[in-house]
């Protein structure tokens, strides 16, 4: 057993083929001469085709990061736009209180000095409520805001393509956003895999490398 979140979120139900194929399927039209059993179903009006957003499609690089304003404490809100001018790391995660001695966020709390070298701010987001977040952050000694995507549930996670409708939790997704509010790197972890911090650090490094060239 690993000392991370694999134990709780080890459900390997990652949808390779997503709901798009199911809902995108054309409703079968029966020929008039086919006097089949499903008469009542036939009489139902044809519903308009719905596009259901793919669960495994997180917003990719180059997109403007949707702004949000979420509670970090019962009476304080944190907005993405507050951090314009510096890189922001967004870490969506499924739930507080995974029953382990360390998890993704505890690791990030330890790697925080490295993130700070890039002047980056880290914001963690899940659908848990603010009281759960406060207790969780205190227990795990988290040194960054933990935001509640609580009401309407998961609405920000959905905007980033990082929400799992069936489970009702945020997906384990990471975004690195530049000082202008543009997503420069994103990553969706397969179910049960704690992504660690290496991808974030590489993305911050690559951004730093790219920036001087842009200014010239």
């Amino acid at each position, binding site marked *: *057993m*690993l*000392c*991370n*979140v*694999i134990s709780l979120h080890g459900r390997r139900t*990652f*949808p*390779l083929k997503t709901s798009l194929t199911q809902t995108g399927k054309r409703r079968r039209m029966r020929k008039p001469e086919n006097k089949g059993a499903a008469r009542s179903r036939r009489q139902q009006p044809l519903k308009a*085709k719905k*596009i259901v957003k*793919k669960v*495994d*499609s*997180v*917003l*990719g690089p*180059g*997109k403007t990061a949707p702004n949000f304003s979420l509670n970090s404490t019962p009476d304080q809100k944190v907005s993405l736009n507050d951090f314009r001018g510096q890189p922001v790391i967004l870490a969506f995660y499924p739930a507080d209180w995974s029953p*382990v*001695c*360390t*998890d*993704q966020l*505890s*690791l990030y*709390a*330890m*790697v925080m000095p*490295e993130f700070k070298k890039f002047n980056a701010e880290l914001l963690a987001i899940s659908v848990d409520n603010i009281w759960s977040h406060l207790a969780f952050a205190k227990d*795990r*000694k988290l040194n960054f805001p933990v935001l509640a995507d609580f009401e309407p549930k998961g609405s920000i996670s959905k905007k980033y*393509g990082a929400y799992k409708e069936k489970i009702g939790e945020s997906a384990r997704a990471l975004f690195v956003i530049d000082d202008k509010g543009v997503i420069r790197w*994103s*990553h*969706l*972890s*397969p179910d049960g*895999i*704690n*992504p*660690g*911090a*290496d*991808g974030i*650090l590489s993305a911050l490094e690559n951004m730093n490398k790219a920036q001087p060239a842009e200014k010239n």
Partner: protein
Amino acid sequence: MSGTTTVARKRTARKTLLEPTSRETAEKYQAPRLEIPVTAERDHIEGPVNASLTLVEYGDYQCPYCGAAYPEVKKVQKELGSELRFVFRNFPLTNMHEHAMNAAETAEAASAQGKFWPMHDFLYEHQATLGDSSVALGYAKKLGLDTQRFEREVAQHMYQKRIKDDFMGGVRSGVNGTPTFYVNGVRHDEDAIAKALIEALSHTK
């Protein structure tokens, strides 16, 4: 009809913009690789230095899961014998485990006098006593170490930089908790039990 066209266009846009990310994570998922190569000069290696199989553990002496993995690693070593070299690197989660750094320093101080592995094993076999430094000191005496030097080096945090370097190297390699194992250079995302480790080791040979 124009509605369908918009739908189709939206779908194409979604495909080009978003699908590479999704495909990458869902189908082409690749576990992170060990970024810091194993070297005989720096690493603690148990088993033949040039063995064909390599198992690297990033561990924390106070972590109960590392404690649980300790006998599993012993089983793997027994099973694979001289085919395997086992490497231990420090990954103390100091914000969760108050004695983890001190324990790592204890093992490194023993290492300075050539007794890393006995001390490493002792610490995992006596995890409950980590808060009491006299226990490890007693063992250092039993091992025949220069205990004055041993105590001084621990107190002066002589090896803290090395331990922190281990930690950051682990972070860069995708260590995401403890213990994290690398089987022949690839992160082992399966269970940290002997059976799974042996299977992974023999598959990636």
